[in-house]
């Protein structure tokens, strides 16, 4: 990864909204940065969503499309005004296409210190579908 793309990624990215979707909140929406890793029996997704709580997050699964939305509320007293800004405050939204391996009934979500953690267990069929190949002597 080059230095240039790294600094690009440090800035928040606006969600590119499909033309068919109209937003109803007068708030910018950003794409949360994510880590996704896979182990033998599950896929784990971590998303940076600072300011989002367990009550302001909304996770929906429709067919194989998983959508994560988080709303952020400002907590600054009224008598303060923004004097210097390096980042915008806004909501988060990102969609993911799930593979068939994921057991849709067992998805678990938790949020801590502004990081969403989604655990997507693979279903048993997916686990057994793997065929071990042994080297023959």
């Amino acid at each position: 990864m080059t230095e240039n793309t790294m600094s690009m990624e440090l800035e928040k990215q606006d969600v590119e909204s499909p033309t068919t979707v109209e937003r109803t909140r007068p708030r910018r929406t950003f794409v949360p940065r994510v880590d996704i890793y896979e182990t033998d029996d599950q896929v784990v997704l971590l998303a940076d969503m600072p300011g989002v709580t367990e009550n302001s997050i909304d996770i929906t699964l429709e067919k194989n499309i998983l959508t994560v939305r988080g709303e952020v509320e400002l907590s600054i007293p009224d008598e303060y005004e923004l004097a210097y800004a390096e980042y915008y405050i806004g909501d988060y939204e990102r969609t993911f296409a799930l593979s068939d391996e994921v057991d849709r009934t067992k998805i678990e979500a938790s949020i801590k210190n502004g990081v969403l953690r989604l655990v997507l267990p693979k279903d048993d069929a997916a686990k057994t579908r793997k065929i071990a190949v042994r080297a023959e002597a």
Partner: protein
Amino acid sequence: MGGPKSPTKYEDEWEVTTMMWRNLYGNGNRRRPGWPGYMLREMRRMQEEMDHLLGGTTGQRTTRFPAMNAWTGADGVVVTAEIPGINPDDIEITVVGETLTVSGRRPDLELPEEARYHRRERGTGEFSRTLELPFRVDAESVSAHFRNGVLEIALPRLAEEMPKKIAVKSAE
């Protein structure tokens, strides 16, 4: 001493403000005016200077993490930063005079051996940010909260540097 200078003589808005500030609070106040509108410009200028100093040797744009916002009020400033995924105990905040430093470390994920990444966009590692404030801070009264990955630091202005209200007496 000559007559009062006309402010229109000063084409630079900044100079006028500095002059107004001096007229109000005296020349003994060596600090720059802390008016919210000018604070933005001052803080940005100082940040750019700092970036220039840090990036000058490599010629590369310095990566700033965490990004910071500053909110001004009558008695001080509130600085906010988004630092998701860090334990509040691992954030170190120091205030010396008018300099605020926030540093810490975002831990690497501890993955099982067989795990493999599909995406890796979140940053990890050590970070340190320094912000120059336009006034000296009462370091004893600084308070910080960390909620849902957002750090909020309240920095009250040093009492002796607070602007004083000047009562106008009638000449009767």
